[in-house]
């Protein structure tokens, strides 16, 4: 087996582990195995491209982090006090690293399978737990170092190598702070709640983070303008609770030579807190961590679905919107599936959130770019910028292929053994359920700011865009071989994406163009709206014109095997 460079570096710190009572040789072996497995694991992202199999995906993602690091580095050159710059840079690193930690390495931290393999062997809890922490640490630190490298180099040139020294040590502390904080947090959640709750919290955290990331990318340009304010720093009591101020303080204290006492306190905090975390973790948490992890396997009530009343209401809604019983069943089935499948949610929610945010970003840019606020608001109001809604349509149409995917796609043998006369009912029920529960409410939400700006006179235009949205989704669904709901691996989306995206853009371009022509020439949109409506109805009828059983739907059949 390969001996990793990382492990050789780790050997230098052997004494620390021995001091904490860790069986170092065993831990080293476990780590070696883990790193070997990581090397062989083909990440799902790359699985479709066979020729890329040999490349290490981790290295690839590092390249992306390096690019982001270059953006962060730019802050070094803004003429601010160093305290501010470092606050911003460290905040970004902390944020990015935490999101990576939660999103990609939670599963490593919470792995209970390896425990079943390793614990029956003569290995103690502490060693196993430490191996796990170090495993995560190796990746997290590599990522943090990559993000920070541009800043490290630029900063050292600008402020001398002393800067580099402090920064490097801090990165170590930041990495440990993140790891210990997250595991402490997981520990506490698991201690008080059950495993399902923790999974939900992590899931929502991931969703939230991916949304924030998207917004940050969009706003990077704006940030410099927003920060162009006159900044005078006064210490406030709550600053003591913000980790970035701790880490930014040493630069003011040691490099700028500002000897205010609170900088010293901050600096001390930046060292003490991670150390306390470390000791706390190994003394208090580590011995019990494995114990609470067991909870991940324990069964528990799912509070959300407990109420029979809610089920009754769901059933009423379903039967209102559907024409036969099978449709209604799949209408509700789709609700339950989407509501409880975390991986699916992780893909669906950010794209819906982005659809909501995108038009707002355009408005925001519009308002900040030119002249005074009230002037640009007037321009915005007198224009036809509600047609930005078509961007939301493009984004939201991404959601339709997701309906066919599931982590549990192998469970679709069920469709085959059930007595389902006509799979059109499955399609109709789940499409209706999906559109009504997830797509249209989000669309309504997107329109709110536009209604606030333009008033109710655009309601009809909003309706037109809604019809276009539904029509587009049905077209995408129809021409992508109509896979059964939840029957596909997530790979499925990757195969489809590019050509569909292109056609979607064309479709939106044309419909938005027609709409724009009508609006700007002040022509009535009513005939166009009615025309679209008729098109929608005809398309729906045509889609489900002929009855198909599972066996006859040969396309569906190839999928099920």
């Amino acid at each position, binding site marked *: 087996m390969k001996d990793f460079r990382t492990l050789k570096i780790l050997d230098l710190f052997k004494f620390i582990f021995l001091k904490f009572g860790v069986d170092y040789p065993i831990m080293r072996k476990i780590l070696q195995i883990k790193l070997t497995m990581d090397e062989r694991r083909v990440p799902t992202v790359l699985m479709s491209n066979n020729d890329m199999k040999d490349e290490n995906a981790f290295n690839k993602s590092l390249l992306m982090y390096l690019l982001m690091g270059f953006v962060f580095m730019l802050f070094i050159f803004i003429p601010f006090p160093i305290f501010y710059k470092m606050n911003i840079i460290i905040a970004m690193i902390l944020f990015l690293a935490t999101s990576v930690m939660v999103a990609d390495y939670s599963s490593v931290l919470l792995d209970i399978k390896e425990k079943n393999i390793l614990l029956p062997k003569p290995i103690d809890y502490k060693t196993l737990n430490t191996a796990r922490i170090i495993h995560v640490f190796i990746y997290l630190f590599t990522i943090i170092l990559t993000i920070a490298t541009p800043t490290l180099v630029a900063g050292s040139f600008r402020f001398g190598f002393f800067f580099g020294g402090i920064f490097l040590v801090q990165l170590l502390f930041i990495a440990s702070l993140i790891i210990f904080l997250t595991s402490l947090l997981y520990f506490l959640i698991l201690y008080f709640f059950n495993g399902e709750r923790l999974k939900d919290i992590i899931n929502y955290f991931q969703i939230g983070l991916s949304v924030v990331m998207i917004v940050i990318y969009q706003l990077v340009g704006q940030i410099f303008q927003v920060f162009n304010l006159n900044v005078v720093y006064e210490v406030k009591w709550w600053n003591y609770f913000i980790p970035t101020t701790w880490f930014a303080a040493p630069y003011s204290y040691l490099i700028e030579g500002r000897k205010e006492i609170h900088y010293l306190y901050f600096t001390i905090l930046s060292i003490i807190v991670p150390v306390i975390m470390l000791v706390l973790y190994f003394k208090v948490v580590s011995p019990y961590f494995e114990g609470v992890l067991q909870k991940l396997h324990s069964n528990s009530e799912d509070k959300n679905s407990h109420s029979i009343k809610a089920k009754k209401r769901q059933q009423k809604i379903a039967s209102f919107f559907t024409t036969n019983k099978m449709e209604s069943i799949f209408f509700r089935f789709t609700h339950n599936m989407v509501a409880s499948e975390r991986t699916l949610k992780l893909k669906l929610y950010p794209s819906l959130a982005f659809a909501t945010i995108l038009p707002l970003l355009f408005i925001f840019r519009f308002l900040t770019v030119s002249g005074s606020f009230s002037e640009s608001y007037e321009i915005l109001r007198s224009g036809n910028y509600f047609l930005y809604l078509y961007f939301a349509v493009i984004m939201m149409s991404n959601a339709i292929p997701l309906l066919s995917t599931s982590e549990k796609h192998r469970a679709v043998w069920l469709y085959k053994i059930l*007595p389902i006369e006509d799979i059109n009912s499955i399609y109709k029920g789940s499409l209706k359920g999906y559109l009504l529960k997830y797509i249209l409410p989000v669309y309504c939400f997107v329109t709110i700011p536009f209604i606030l700006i333009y008033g109710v006179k655009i309601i009809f235009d909003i309706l037109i865009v809604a019809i276009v949205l539904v029509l587009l989704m049905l077209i995408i669904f129809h021409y992508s071989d109509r896979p059964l709901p939840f029957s596909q691996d997530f790979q499925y989306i990757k195969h489809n994406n590019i050509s569909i995206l292109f056609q979607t853009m064309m479709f939106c371009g044309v419909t938005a163009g027609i709409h724009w022509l009508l609006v700007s020439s002040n022509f009535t949109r009513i005939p166009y709206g009615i025309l679209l409506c008729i098109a929608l109805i005809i398309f729906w009828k045509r889609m489900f014109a002929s009855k198909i059983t599972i066996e006859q739907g040969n396309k569906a059949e190839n999928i099920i095997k």
Partner: protein
Amino acid sequence: MEKEMVVSIKDLEMSYGTKKVLKGINLEIYKGEIIGYIGPNGAGKSTTVKILLGIINEYKGEVRIFGEDITKDSVTYKNRIGYVPETAEIFDNLTAYEYLSFIGEVYGLDLEDLEGKIKKLMGLFSIEEALHGRISSFSKGMKQKVLIIASLIHNPDILFFDEPLSGLDANSVMIFKEILAALAKQGKTIFYSSHIMEVVEKISNRIILLNNGDIVADGTFDDLKKMSMEGSLQDIFNELTGFKKYKEIADEFVSTLQGV
């Protein structure tokens, strides 16, 4: 009582690519039979069951269930069939209640009735408290119980069980065996596939042994005994599948452990 035929299979052939898994099977199965469907790994047991269930349809030959060719009407007969698969991939992100009521409703049962039925059945298997828990958080045995309930909830006439006991505790095994006997008495037909010969020997009133895509034995346990002069079903199984070296292999295995 006149014996009523529920399943008939004629010259059933099936191949995956060039590999022939079923080489022309002929079978007639009657109402009320409990059939122990056994054979070594890869003999074609699961394939047969999957064909009967309509999961696989690229076969050659004729399959009739309740007298109807299943390719003619591939839907109606499924109302009267229940299935517990061996390796169950199920939508386990749903709660037990959501899953069972979904299946029950697809079988055309009324949601109101289902509610009580599900609660009662889960209670009888003493997993009532997990009614609203996600199946993914269940132990293997609990999951198996959910699958068994799912396969029976619509009171089907033919049942296909593939290792249905796996993961069940001893008490539940007793309950389940009693359920099987009671169902057979009601005239249900049960296809029972397992590798645990002791259980098959006890439960079934007809045993079908499959090897390499062919039926090598078909009859009651007593018939099979006559055929092979051997004592237990395990022995018969070994003999008919041409496997006699197990003792030598085991000896060699153990001596390797000792480093001789």
